[in-house]
């Protein structure tokens, strides 16, 4: 079955020329997204996890051409849409954009402060359905209700709402064009903890109702576990492990995944310490270690890990990991 969304070999490298007194005359390449591939079916959620600098946000942005990728294919129903997004044919571009939308992390910054909520929701309708102008108001009201806001508050401005409510508006805006895929970048990280569960529930319910697929980016593994069907773990621009959510969490094969999962403090005092202790810190993206990028910090590193960069290999029916010495 042709997947709804398939990303193949996505790449984004930044050239950095470093001048100045601190790092004299070094220049290098930051491999922000380095050959990332994954597959997503309708109604599924891929959780994209990793720490800062791993490239998860850049990946999502590249998929929507907010950041132009250097190479790779983005297949919607089997057809490569990357050239369309970057191209000049506006009609074709709009047809693609209609199917993939984005929810931003910061609910304060992702809405134009000088526009009312109604105006913010009207924009996607204006761009994609200009001929149905008469139906816009009804659609906006329906959208607000779907995300749990009262339609009559649409005349208000973003600053009059709380963070959780603004995030609901952001979700409503993404859903306005009835997309097939929604990429969400840390949608609950900026929200109060007592409000996060509301938004997570909303996202889950919307997915059940509308059959939309999510790419859910987060560093908060517990919310990822809740919302995802599959998980991809990124490190220094690569996917190091990918698979079904329960498999990944119950039995991580890559040592970084294991460290990441074990590093999250569990809200149960006296829980058994299954910590995988990592040495050192994430290396600068410019000084990427040879061989496996994770080997300097890995307690299970073998000599081969320093020389050969492992490729993703199947580790079971539902997971793949890039490791010479998997757990």
């Amino acid at each position, binding site marked *: 079955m042709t997947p709804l969304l398939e990303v193949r070999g996505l790449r984004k490298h930044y050239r950095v020329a470093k001048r100045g007194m601190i790092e004299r005359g070094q220049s290098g390449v930051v491999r922000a997204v380095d050959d990332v591939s994954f597959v997503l079916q309708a109604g599924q959620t891929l959780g994209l996890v990793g720490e800062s600098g791993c490239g998860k946000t850049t990946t999502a942005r590249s998929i929507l051409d907010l950041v132009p990728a250097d190479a790779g294919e983005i297949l919607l129903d089997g057809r490569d849409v990357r050239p369309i997004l970057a191209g000049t044919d506006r009609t074709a571009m709009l047809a693609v954009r209609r199917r993939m939308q*984005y929810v*931003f992390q910061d609910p304060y*910054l992702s809405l*134009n402060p*000088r526009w009312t909520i109604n105006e913010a929701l009207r924009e996607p309708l204006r761009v994609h359905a200009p001929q149905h102008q008469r139906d816009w108001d009804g659609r906006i009201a329906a959208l607000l209700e779907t995300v749990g806001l009262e339609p009559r*508050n649409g005349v208000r*401005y973003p600053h009059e709402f709380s963070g959780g409510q603004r995030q609901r508006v952001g979700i409503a805006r993404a859903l306005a064009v009835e997309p097939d895929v929604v990429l969400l970048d840390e949608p609950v990280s900026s929200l109060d903890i007592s409000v996060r569960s509301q938004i997570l529930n909303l996202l889950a319910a919307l997915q059940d109702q509308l059959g939309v697929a999510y790419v859910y980016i987060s560093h908060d593994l517990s919310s990822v576990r809740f919302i995802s069907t599959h998980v991809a773990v990124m490190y220094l621009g690569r996917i190091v492990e990918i698979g079904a959510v329960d498999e990944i969490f119950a039995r991580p094969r890559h040592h970084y995944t294991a460290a990441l999962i074990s590093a999250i403090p569990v809200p149960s005092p006296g829980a058994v310490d299954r910590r995988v202790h990592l040495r050192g810190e994430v290396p600068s993206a410019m000084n990427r270690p040879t061989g496996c990028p994770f080997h300097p910090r890995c307690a299970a590193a073998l000599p081969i890990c320093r020389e050969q960069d492992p490729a993703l290999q199947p580790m079971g029916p539902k997971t793949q990991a890039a490791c010479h010495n998997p757990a």
Partner: protein
Amino acid sequence: MDADLVPAASAETTPPRRPPSGAWRQSWHRFRRNRAGMIGLFLVVLVVLTAIIGPFAAPYDPNDNSAMLRGAANAAPSARNWLGTDRNGYDVLSRAIYGAPTALAVGLGAMLIASLIGVLVGGVAGYIGGFTDEALMRGAEFFMIVPVFVVILAVVRLFGIIVVGTALERIPNLNLMTIILLLGLFSWPQIARMTRAEFLRLRHAEFVEAARCIGTTRREILFRHILPNALPPLIVLVALGIGGAILAEAMVSFLGFGDPKSISWGQMLFFNYQALKVAPWACLVPGAAIFITVLGFNLLADGLTDAFNPRLRA
């Protein structure tokens, strides 16, 4: 998650207590609470009203020097001439009133020119970036390096000489217009830089990215998202610039390079400073007028800065 030291007051969304307020109205509310800003606004309104209504209410024609014929030049303030007369027998009050529209014309005219050029140049530089940006900014720097004042003096004098005997001479207030044009031409770099900075910042703003995600055209993004959000700091610069332009014209005129046929406060100072000991009111009045006007615009700019950038204060 940053823990705010002062928890923000979250709004009610069930029964609204007050009508929805956009960002502009919110800024206005904040402005109203700023005392300095309100004083500035009051002063500016005062000057504007003087400029509009004054000429109809002035007691004398500003060019009426009949007092000289009566030997009442340099007369102290009296019931007849509330603020006295000056060296040429003009009524000081009337001339001061007529100076107001001149000052405003200078300020607004110069800033209009500066804004048009500045926003265009800065906007293009900020939005397009790259080589265009570099080139435009070097051009702006050229205008900033040039010693503005000296150039204005030189050009005005030169222009004045060239024009003598030609048809251009008959254009009223030509000299003044030259000054306004020059002031505008040398004030645009500041506005351009601010515009550029705002455009650079807003280009990467998340709500702009959201618009790109949706597929909004570049032009719509520019005019409906970026420009309205770039306006606040520009408005502040313009307010300050108006005050600055008025002051600059006053200086130019005071040095004798102004337009002798126009009635401006600087001109009044130029005519009357030699008689300072004998008729101080003839200089104090225009001096005070300049002071009040420039102060007004500066306080207004202060108030606007605070209104657009709310900070929490006890």
